[in-house]
């Protein structure tokens, strides 16, 4: 029973990471109308930039945080014109072209990380950054500060995002474009400028996710982005593409499922079980459990 509870806690902190990633992915899909398959790879890239700045500045955490978030925003904004150029029609999502473009970006990022940083070996964050200090211990249940940070920051970030979407003018513009791009254009909402705003917000979310991953895991590797990208896309499809609330629920559930399986099944089989579950759900319900918002 203690193992079960411990894994639920692990799952919630991991799930909060997935929720942040899926929320950013869905936001880009709804407002910028792109499928950014390489979004998790951008997050891993931000982790590497943060690590590099920490090493260069003698573990200056403030600069590491700024570098992590800043690099994600800059990368997203640089890629915005590329996506906008390849989209055939702004009124709908050009799934094929934007997905292929983001696959290309993912290839580039993964290979640069394999060659350009730490000779392709996994990186490890300094002890001051990694949140592995035990805050609460009851038998086998061990809650670390990293888990608390990821859960707390995840809740705050998603709450802020929902506040932005539902309580601000900018959020109303986002929702208007997501609902009906033509109608939004008619009432004078600038599509490209608003889409750029979504790239920037997703960049902030991505940077925050990168920092949380650094705190929670303490390491990163070039191939991490591909695996996470697969899970993020799977969660989005299972929840229903563009469904923010659905993504929240399924992201948390996936985190909990993975953690519980890892607690009882050894090694890499745990990952395979999570993928099998996702595969079965997608095969049975290719349009998602909660329905697509596209």
């Amino acid at each position, binding site marked *: 029973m203690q193992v079960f509870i411990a894994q639920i806690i692990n799952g919630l902190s991991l799930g909060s990471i997935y929720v942040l990633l899926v929320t950013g992915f869905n936001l880009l899909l709804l407002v910028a109308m792109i*499928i950014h398959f390489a979004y998790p790879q951008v997050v891993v890239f931000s982790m590497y930039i943060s690590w590099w700045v920490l090493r260069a500045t003698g573990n200056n955490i403030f600069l590491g945080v700024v570098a992590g978030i800043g690099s994600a925003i800059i990368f997203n904004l640089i890629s915005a014109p*590329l996506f906008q*150029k*390849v989209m055939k029609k702004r009124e709908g999502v050009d*799934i*094929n*072209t934007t*997905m*292929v*473009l983001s*696959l*290309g*970006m*993912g*290839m*580039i990022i*993964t*290979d*640069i990380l394999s*060659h350009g940083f730490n000779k392709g070996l996994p990186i490890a964050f300094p002890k001051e950054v990694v949140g592995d200090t035990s805050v609460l211990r009851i038998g086998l249940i061990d809650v670390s500060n990293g888990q608390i940070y990821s859960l707390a920051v995840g809740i705050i970030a998603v709450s802020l995002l929902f506040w932005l979407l539902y309580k601000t003018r900018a959020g109303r513009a986002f929702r208007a474009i997501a609902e009906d791009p033509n109608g939004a254009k008619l009432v004078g909402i600038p599509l490209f400028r608003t889409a750029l705003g979504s790239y920037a917000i997703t960049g902030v979310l991505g940077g925050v996710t990168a920092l949380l991953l650094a705190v929670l895991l303490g390491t990163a590797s070039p191939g991490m982005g*591909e*695996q996470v990208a*697969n899970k993020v*896309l*799977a969660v989005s*499809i299972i929840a229903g*593409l563009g469904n923010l609330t659905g993504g929240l629920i399924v992201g948390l559930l996936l985190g909990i499922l993975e953690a519980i399986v890892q607690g009882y099944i050894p*090694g*890499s*089989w745990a*990952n*395979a079980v999570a*993928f*099998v579950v*996702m*595969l079965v759900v*997608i*095969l*049975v319900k*290719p*349009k998602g459990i909660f329905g697509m918002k596209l």
Partner: protein
Amino acid sequence: MSLPLYYYLAITAIYILMSWAIYLPYRVAHLHFLVVANMAISGYLAAYMVMTLHLSFWVALITGFLVGGLIGFIVAQFIGDAPTFAVVIVGFTFIYITRTVIENTKAVGGTMGIFGLPSIMGNPALHRWIILIILYSLVLIVGFLIYRFDHSRLGRAASAIFVDKNIAMSFGVDVKKIGILLQTFSSFIAGGCGVLYGFIYKSFHLDYFTFHLIGIFMTVIFVGGYRTQWGVVVAAPILYGLPLLFPPEVASWRIVIYGTLLIMVLVLKPEGFITRKLVYKIEKKLSYLIHRRGVRI
């Protein structure tokens, strides 16, 4: 024949066949990445049959084709008419699951892989020639079948689905059946390619079947031109051959080069270099020249 030439010709043929295996389902806007998992499954199965069960290469090759086709057919029952992103994610998850199963299965060498596959007919030089003959025969057969498909009613139906699935359905096109047909055939090709890929190197390792492979095939299709089969024929030898001429420090960055090329082509020349218009002009010119020669004779 020199070894470098053998590897160049063999791998180019694999690239052509596998890129066609992805090109076919993409005719109905499906990015069918399951083909890489098909390669791995059929390849490892063939290696196991040859090394452990001591069956002949030919039995293993035919089994590889059939197993690939069977897996493609079964999965296509569920995703034959699914949205593109669902097909993509099914492919990716299959690759992860396949890699995990192979990694943890000692019978197929686990993370070490399988090495020391025997030469066909027991002779290394004959082995290389046989592999090349099989590969290029496949290129001709598959190329011919794709050409007939593209110029048939089925090909036109596939084009209609690519442009607008709903309008295609309203014209009576059975979207699911065409999706199943294309996915099954593409998995069939991939199964055979998986067996041959391993027998080119006489070994099987998980590093042969990675996501980089998907990136390479995507680059071949989109840079060559995704609207016709000829783009793959032109792009595969160039994209595989050029990095071999670069100095090693540059060649090691070839995935970055492929990714950059893919993005540049999507932004600047979305249809690729070999477009349908170009192929049509060439076909017209060729038929005019043949006709003129015919009249002279």
